[in-house]
């Protein structure tokens, strides 16, 4: 377990160390060093897991809050690939950050976030997980606002507030779990809770909370805002790793409900499937319409997360038999981390040279950027699921899952399977678009003087590409080495069907090739009819709805407060004037006299004597009156 502790501690120490280093190079060297150490120790801890099985570690004697860690296949896998991507990004940043300001803060939060992410993946119970979740949110928020212009500020607020909302949801879920009387431990399936309804609400809150991070529709809205404005390494990590934290949380939630065994939350599987499909469609649909490279990639992250969520959903629906869906989800998380970060990094290189994100203004850059072009092409093939590349493997696993649920004949599930293919087509189309518009055709913008791909950038890209190729060509190795243990530790013990899957079965390959072909035609069609320039109406997006809501609130609020203020002012004025009037009358009645008061005034002797008599008369009359009434 000590290796895992190292995983969490080292980055924070590195962040502390950064404070003493002013120049960007040494900072980035620290970054690379920390990344390396973390990667190594995550590998070490993975080996430890191989050797001793699940390892847990508990900090005792802390009373209310006892932080605990747990290292099993799933967390080991996630921590490993996140560490890897982090290291690659660190190498990339060595060159990239020379073009950015305020490198210190960026590096600091880069490392803090690394620690948080590692902690999140290694957390042994949901409270500990929440701690790192919050730290991750806040730290990565500073990536988004790093440019500090108006746009990035707005995006940052979106990101931060949604993240905090997610954290609150998870906190609420935790409270509900406690009251429902189930465990908070990660990696155990919940004992049958005392209060099923409450447990259901808790799970729902978890899905919502982790869904925000996972860019699940309809709460994905932060994602396409945050990615374009963040510096490229930031967006790469956001899209590559941070949203996987959401996926991780969802998987653990699924494990908590024991993958639907025992029907603790019957509706959960269907719900997640629907959410997944919607996310896929929404993401890819909007991605097709984007001209901004980074935003296009961001929407693709949404749709790819849709795949993952769909996989989890199928696993939930299949009640313990869904090893295809789950392993596919896990595998796809790994793959998506790889190719999406590669794509972002590539786009970043282009941006360094051209300061241009608009695809329609780019073109013909392959001469200038051969390495980038090749690596991005590999990555694009990966994401579209071309046979021989990593995406293909995970997608076919997911597709198996989808097919299995579709067999149940339930309409939703059938349609889910069909949409699965449709999304594949869309993905293909939009990546043909990305690659084609960027590298082919004739060059539209002239490059900066120092444009080009520095050695470090090349190394970074090459590393990612290599890993993707390895995975794509050696799927079974990866399956047995990582994915099966991960799936097993994620709570699915029945992995029999995984071993008899043949990835390169001709049917599957053909399916994928057809999908690609369709994608190509769709791209051509889209380019002919300016389909890709279609602007979806504002009211469609949740964000617009939110804006309307805020507007309405502000209007109502201002109206209420205005009326209230005017009322209170008028009322207070009346009150004060009455009070003053009374005082004046009192004084005049007392001695100042004037007008009628000269006669009534207390200082008028006659009136006083008269007063005495009146009181006496009043007393006597009162008595007689009382007697008359009293009889």
């Amino acid at each position: 377990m000590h290796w895992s502790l190292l995983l969490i501690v080292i980055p924070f120490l590195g962040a502390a160390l950064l404070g003493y280093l002013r120049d960007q190079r040494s900072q980035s060297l620290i970054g690379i060093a920390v990344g390396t150490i973390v990667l190594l120790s995550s590998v070490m801890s993975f080996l430890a897991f191989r050797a001793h099985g699940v390892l847990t570690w508990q900090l005792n004697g802390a009373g209310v809050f006892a932080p605990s860690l747990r290292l099993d296949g799933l967390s080991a896998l996630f921590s490993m690939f996140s560490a890897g991507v982090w290291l690659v990004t660190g190498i990339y940043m060595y060159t990239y950050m020379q073009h950015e300001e305020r490198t210190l803060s960026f590096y600091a939060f880069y490392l803090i976030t690394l620690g948080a992410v590692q902690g999140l993946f290694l957390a042994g119970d949901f409270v500990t997980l929440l701690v790192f979740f919050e730290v991750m949110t806040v730290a990565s928020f500073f990536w988004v606002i790093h440019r500090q212009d108006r746009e990035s500020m707005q995006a940052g607020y979106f990101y931060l507030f949604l993240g905090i909302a997610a954290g609150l949801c998870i906190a609420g879920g935790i409270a509900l779990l406690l009251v429902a009387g189930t465990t908070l431990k990660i990696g155990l399936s919940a004992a049958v809770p005392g209060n099923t309804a409450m447990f259901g609400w808790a799970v729902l809150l978890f899905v919502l909370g982790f869904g925000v991070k996972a860019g699940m529709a309809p709460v994905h809205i932060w994602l396409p805002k945050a990615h374009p404005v963040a510096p490229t390494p930031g967006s790469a990590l956001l899209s590559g790793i941070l949203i996987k934290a959401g996926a991780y949380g969802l998987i653990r939630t699924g494990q908590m409900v024991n993958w639907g065994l025992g029907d603790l939350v019957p509706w959960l599987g269907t719900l997640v499937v629907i959410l997944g499909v919607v996310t896929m469609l929404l993401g890819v649909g909007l991605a097709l319409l984007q001209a901004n490279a980074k935003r296009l990639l961001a929407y693709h992250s949404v749709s790819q997360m849709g795949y993952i969520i769909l996989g989890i959903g199928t696993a939930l629906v299949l009640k313990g038999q869904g090893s295809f869906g789950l392993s596919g989800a896990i595998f796809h998380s790994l793959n998506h981390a790889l190719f999406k970060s590669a794509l972002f990094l590539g786009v970043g290189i282009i941006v360094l040279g051209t300061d241009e994100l608009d695809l329609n203004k780019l073109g013909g850059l392959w001469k200038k950027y051969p390495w980038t072009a090749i690596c991005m092409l590999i990555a694009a093939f990966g994401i579209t699921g071309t046979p021989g590349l990593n995406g293909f493997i995970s997608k076919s696993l997911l597709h198996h899952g989808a097919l299995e649920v579709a067999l149940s004949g339930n309409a939703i599930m059938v349609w889910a399977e069909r949409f699965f293919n449709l999304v594949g087509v869309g993905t293909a189309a939009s990546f043909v678009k990305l690659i084609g518009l960027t590298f082919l055709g004739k060059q539209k913008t002239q490059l900066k003087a120092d444009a080009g791909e520095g050695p470090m950038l090349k190394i970074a890209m090459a590393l990612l590409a290599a890993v993707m190729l390895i995975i794509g060509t050696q799927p079974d190795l990866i399956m047995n080495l990582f994915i099966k243990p991960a799936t097993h530790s994620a709570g699915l013990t029945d992995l029999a069907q995984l071993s008899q899957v043949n990835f390169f079965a001709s049917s599957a390959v053909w399916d994928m090739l057809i999908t690609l072909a369709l994608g190509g035609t769709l791209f051509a069609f889209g380019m002919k009819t300016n389909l890709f320039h279609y602007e979806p109406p504002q009211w469609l997006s949740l964000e617009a709805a939110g804006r309307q809501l805020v507007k309405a609130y502000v209007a109502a609020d201002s109206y209420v407060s205005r009326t209230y203020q005017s009322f209170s002012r008028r009322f207070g004025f009346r009150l004060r004037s009455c009070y003053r009037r009374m005082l004046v009358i009192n004084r005049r009645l007392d001695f100042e006299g004037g007008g009628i008061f000269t006669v009534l005034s207390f200082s008028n002797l006659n009136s006083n004597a008269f007063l005495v008599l009146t009181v006496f008369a009043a007393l006597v009359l009162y008595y007689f009156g009382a007697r008359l009434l009293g009889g």
Partner: protein
Amino acid sequence: MPVVISENLAVLIVVALLSAGYVMPLLKKIKRFRVAEFFAVFVLGLALSGGLYLAREVLHNGAFTYAVGGWSAPWGIELAVDSVSGLFLITIGLVAAPILLWASVDLVREVGSRARAAWYLTLYLLLVAALSGLAVTGDLFNVYVMVEVATIASCAIVAARSNAVSVEATFKYLMLATIGSGFVLLGIGFLFVLTGNLNMNFIFQELSTSWQNYPTALWVGLSFFMVGFGVKSALFPLHVWLPDAHSSAITPSSAMLSSLAVKGYIIALLKVFYIAVGPEIITNLPITDIMTLLGMLAIVAGALFALAQDELKRRLAFSTVSQVGYIFLGIGLGNIHGLTGTFMHIISHGATKALLFLAAGAIIKQTGKTRISEMAGVGFEMPVTLGVFAVGSLSMIGIPLFSGFVSKWQLLLGSLVNRNFLAVIVLVGGSLLAAAYLLPVLRTAFFERSQDRTVKEVPYVQLVAMLFLAVVIIMVGTFPSFVLQLAKQAAGTLLGLEVLP
């Protein structure tokens, strides 16, 4: 204490005060006039100790009557010494002595000449004597005589400083007071006609058997009393003379009148109503309702009028009107708690209002400013004076640990016992209003900056006097057990209940 003195103590107090009063003019020739003043204070101190002794006697051995010159009633004059008299004697002693001590510093300058000062002392002691007489007297004849003496003396000390305003105020006061005593006399006449007696106990016995035969006549008589004493003790609609008199008189006079003179008549009223006429008649007639009504009216109206004043002493005068309302409210409640509250308020308001007036007088004397709005920053020049003023204000508002709270508490209990929630509201609101008209003084004095730093604190004798009163307030507020026991017993005697010591 030798027996001969102890059993004649009640009359000795009165006689001593009277004779001391008549000695004063002779002392005006001596070289240092302060001696005379201190002698007067000393006599008052004696009276206080005598009062305390009597109070202890009464508290432990119960009430006793004393036939002056051995002539027993109905032929002779009878003094009835009970806890009522004990309590009021203590009040007189506690308040009158420090006031005179305070006055002694520059009495001569205030009233103009030594001779006038000497006569002032005479009147002062006469007033005190008359009030103590009212405390101990047992028959209506003496009540009348003492009331008259007190009236004339108090009018005279208002006129001590002869300027237009005060003389005019005095005249008005005198007129109304005389009408009032005329009413009192008529009331006495009615009781005499109905019972053929002037001794309270005999009247009580007569009435308790035969009052149903002529309730109307009794009522008319009692109304005469109520109006008569009401005028003299400034019950709200009849308070008209008070503000002028109290604000225009010299400070010791105002303090004396507000804190003691007014209460003396209330004591007389209580004696007539509860000892002579008796509680059950009172509760059968609508008197108590009327008193409650007038009391509440007085509390609110007095406070509202006080709010309107910018002149400090006048504001205090109106606050007296409001506080008298508390006392009458207690009488009106007519249960043990209410009357206890009345007595507690008599003593606590006595000390408090005396303190406030003395402090106000000190401020006016040192700064020459009579209006609150001019008193910015005085608190920094005269910290002690304003400090004791703060003590007085808190007691008047009714903050715990100050005497005002004890009486307010009892009054609240009394009104709750009667299920009279309007009274509860009025009591609570009354103390809020008290805060409203007293705290601004402190705010202006402490939290607004003034330009001149020339003002100095008053001489230490006056400080001692004021501090003494402040200590009295705090002690009564913090350890009220003795006084409270006395007050309870007094209420018991009035209601004819037996209250265990």
